[in-house]
């Protein structure tokens, strides 16, 4: 399968994302100003500071030409993964519910956190089991997931919360300890932790690989049908 990782001006995790994707498939970089998704099977919107994060995080990047194509790709059922700044971009684009607010500590945080898989019913977590712990790093200043109460109830009812910070591990004040949510159609997923930084024992954990392996499993099963 082929992943496409978007590179915005200000992205900084696109190469790690490409390398992580490269462990389970082929991976190309997609330029923010292009409209050609190059026939990829899944799109990754990576971490960083797209367009300088001016105004609000992700607010300007969502209008990049490539994002129009990504929105259409997602509407057609394509798999889209947003990591950190990518999650913020997808929320701003209304492709995911909620928004990301500054950490309650107002500080940049950079550390390994324990996550709990809240749902394995998705193309992003199907290789996991519910309740499984994943050790994956976070590094952000604006990672406090917020959604109003009625939206949170909807997310719970639809099983859209895929990852939570394990008890006592919430690093940013995120509501309901939410670390990652998917859309109602379950083909778009955003998370603040960085699975692409946890794919090699050299950096302490390989737990992030399950996200990429889950995507590969979904894409190849669909190809066989």
């Amino acid at each position, binding site marked *: 399968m082929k992943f496409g990782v978007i590179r915005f001006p200000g992205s900084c995790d696109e190469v790690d994302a490409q390398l992580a994707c490269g462990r389970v498939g082929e991976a190309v970089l997609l330029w923010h100003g292009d409209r050609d998704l190059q026939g990829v099977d899944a799109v990754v919107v990576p971490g960083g500071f797209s367009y300088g994060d001016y105004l*609000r995080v992700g607010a300007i990047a969502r*209008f990049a030409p490539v994002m129009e194509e990504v929105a259409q790709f997602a509407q057609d059922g394509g798999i889209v993964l947003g990591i950190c700044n990518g999650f913020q971009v997808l929320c701003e684009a209304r492709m995911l519910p909620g*928004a990301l607010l500054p950490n*309650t500590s*107002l500080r940049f945080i950079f550390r390994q956190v324990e996550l709990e898989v809240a749902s394995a019913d998705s193309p992003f977590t199907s290789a996991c089991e519910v309740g499984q712990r994943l050790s994956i790093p976070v590094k952000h200043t604006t990672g*406090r997931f*917020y959604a109003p109460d009625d939206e949170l109830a909807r997310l719970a009812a639809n099983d859209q919360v895929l990852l939570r910070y394990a008890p006592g591990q919430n690093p940013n*004040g995120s509501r309901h300890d939410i670390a990652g949510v998917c859309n109602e159609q379950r083909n778009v997923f955003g998370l603040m932790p960085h699975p692409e930084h946890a794919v090699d024992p050299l950096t302490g954990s390989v737990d992030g690989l399950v996200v990429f392996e889950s995507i590969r499993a979904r894409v190849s099963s669909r190809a066989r049908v």
Partner: protein
Amino acid sequence: MPVLRARILVRPKAGILDPQGQAVERALPALGFSGVRNVRVGRLIELDVEDSARLSEMCQRLLTNPLIEDYEIVESAGADSIGSPADAELPGGVAGADSIGRPADAELPGRVAPGTSA
């Protein structure tokens, strides 16, 4: 084309935790400013616009995120009034604490629809 100077006041939506406001609120007593409550920190966007009828749309689509922010559009005279004349229209020393928000705002000149979209 006549140009209008507009100010867009952006605030964190009511009920959303504003740690920046809290930090400011905690800092003030240390400087001897007691009796300060309900500090909220927002943002001011100033711009010159030809078609002010489109300001709300600009706010909805780019300038604010309606899920987490409320906004108010304050229009003033022409663009050449940048600086002191327009400043006089900003909500300065408005009345008591209970007037924070909409009621006091309504008394200000040149105000158009407060944006409290869903």
